[in-house]
């Protein structure tokens, strides 16, 4: 045993170190059923209620501290959140735009699935990249051209978001008028120079749908003896060799008859809303189908 005070203290210090090392070794080597482990478990069970109680008591202080911390960083956080809100608003707008585009493209696909096109017809979706600047003419410029197989005279259909009628929003847009390598000019059926051979579904009435400067569609040359009721659907008749038979154009809005005129004059409300036209589908008909300009 150490004899002096200092030696005894050193001895005690060494004993404490050795005891720690021994405990450490036993802790790592001992199985879970061992005495050291049992002592530790008992200690933990004693402290557990204290921890639980402490957590409850400390919670208001912790909350207060967190609140104070949050207050200090509130300005930065507000700026950060504002930036996030702007970003999310941008994303929401993009998503909304994508949903609308999806709806329009789905409309185009609906048109495509109709069994009215000649065999061998290809379908090319194009984006509208420009519009006629005046009402004297109605056309749109699309981002596909000769390199994509587009040639003058090909019919073009489109879909725009419209509620109501089952065919609403989906119908004939016009025909390709001119092409460049990568763009094409599409004459709309509302163009004053446009004329489409058409017939009224549910009736034997046939005629020519013509555009006008006012943007209205007029179906002319309809025999006045054939009854035509409003709300009937007007479709292409297939005569003339440009538009395949059966493409929806619009519905009969009103029927006008003049004593001096041997034909009825029917106002047609187009299915496609040309003001919001963003995508179109060009029907690339096989060359043998005889599509040509001027109907």
């Amino acid at each position, binding site marked *: 045993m150490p004899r002096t005070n200092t030696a005894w203290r050193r001895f*005690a210090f060494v004993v404490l*170190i050795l005891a720690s090392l021994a405990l450490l070794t036993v802790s790592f080597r001992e199985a879970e059923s061992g005495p*050291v482990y049992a002592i530790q478990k008992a200690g*933990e069970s004693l402290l557990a209620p204290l921890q639980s109680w*402490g957590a409850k008591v400390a919670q208001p202080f912790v909350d207060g501290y967190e609140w104070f911390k949050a207050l200090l960083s509130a300005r930065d956080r507000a700026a950060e959140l504002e930036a996030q809100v702007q970003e999310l608003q941008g994303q929401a707008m993009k998503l909304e735009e994508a949903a609308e585009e999806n709806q329009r493209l789905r409309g185009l696909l609906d048109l495509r699935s109709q069994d009215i096109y000649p065999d061998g017809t290809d379908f090319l979706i194009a984006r509208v990249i420009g519009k006629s600047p005046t009402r004297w003419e109605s056309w749109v410029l699309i981002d596909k051209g000769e390199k994509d197989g587009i040639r003058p005279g090909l019919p073009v259909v489109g879909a725009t978001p419209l509620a109501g009628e089952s065919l609403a929003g989906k119908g004939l847009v016009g025909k390709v008028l001119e092409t460049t390598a990568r763009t094409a000019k599409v004459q709309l059926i509302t163009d004053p120079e446009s004329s489409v051979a058409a017939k009224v579904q549910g009736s034997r009435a046939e005629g020519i749908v013509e555009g006008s400067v006012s943007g209205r569609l007029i179906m002319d040359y309809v025999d006045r003896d054939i009854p035509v009721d409003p709300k009937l659907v007007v479709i292409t008749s297939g005569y003339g060799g440009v538009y395949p038979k059966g493409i929806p154009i619009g519905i009969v809005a009103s029927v006008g008859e003049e004593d001096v005129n041997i034909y009825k004059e029917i106002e047609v409300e187009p299915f496609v809303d040309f003001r919001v036209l963003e995508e179109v589908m060009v029907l690339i008909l096989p060359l043998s189908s005889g599509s040509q300009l001027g109907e």
Partner: protein
Amino acid sequence: MFVRNLKEVGRYLVLILGPVVLQVAFVSHVTVLGVTADLFFITTILVALTRGRLAGAALGFVCGLAADIAYMQPLGVRSLIYVLVAYAAAVVMTRLGTVGPGAMLLVAGGLSFASQLLYGVVQYVTGPRGGFLELIAFQVLPGATLDALITLPAYWVLVRLRILPPIGPEVFATQGEET
């Protein structure tokens, strides 16, 4: 004499049970700089500085056991570290010859850094591996800073409550005898 001894026992009981209760019930729930203060370490340092290396080492051993139990760590890890820390604190104090507030801050911070580094090494060897620099940046340095900052007010409170004696020439004399 008996009353005096009884008071001394009472003081040690407070020095052991106080950190256990405060640490487990309150301090471990409050995070500052991403870490929590270690009252076991602070008590060990203060006892070593005011009562000498043996008292510090003995209290460090007991506090280490309590900490290992409270934190569900293998018994003996913190005991070993706190015994070494107490010894080192007393040695540093003897070498300095005086412990003013600044020196106490440095001693506490430095030894907290060393003890946490040692503990980190043990964890690194026995537990999941982590980045050494991350350990320093996110645990050791903030922990050492926090412990150092709490050591001064803790010393002031414990001296005011007469649980610890103030650091004076007689303490240095005792420490000097031991070396």
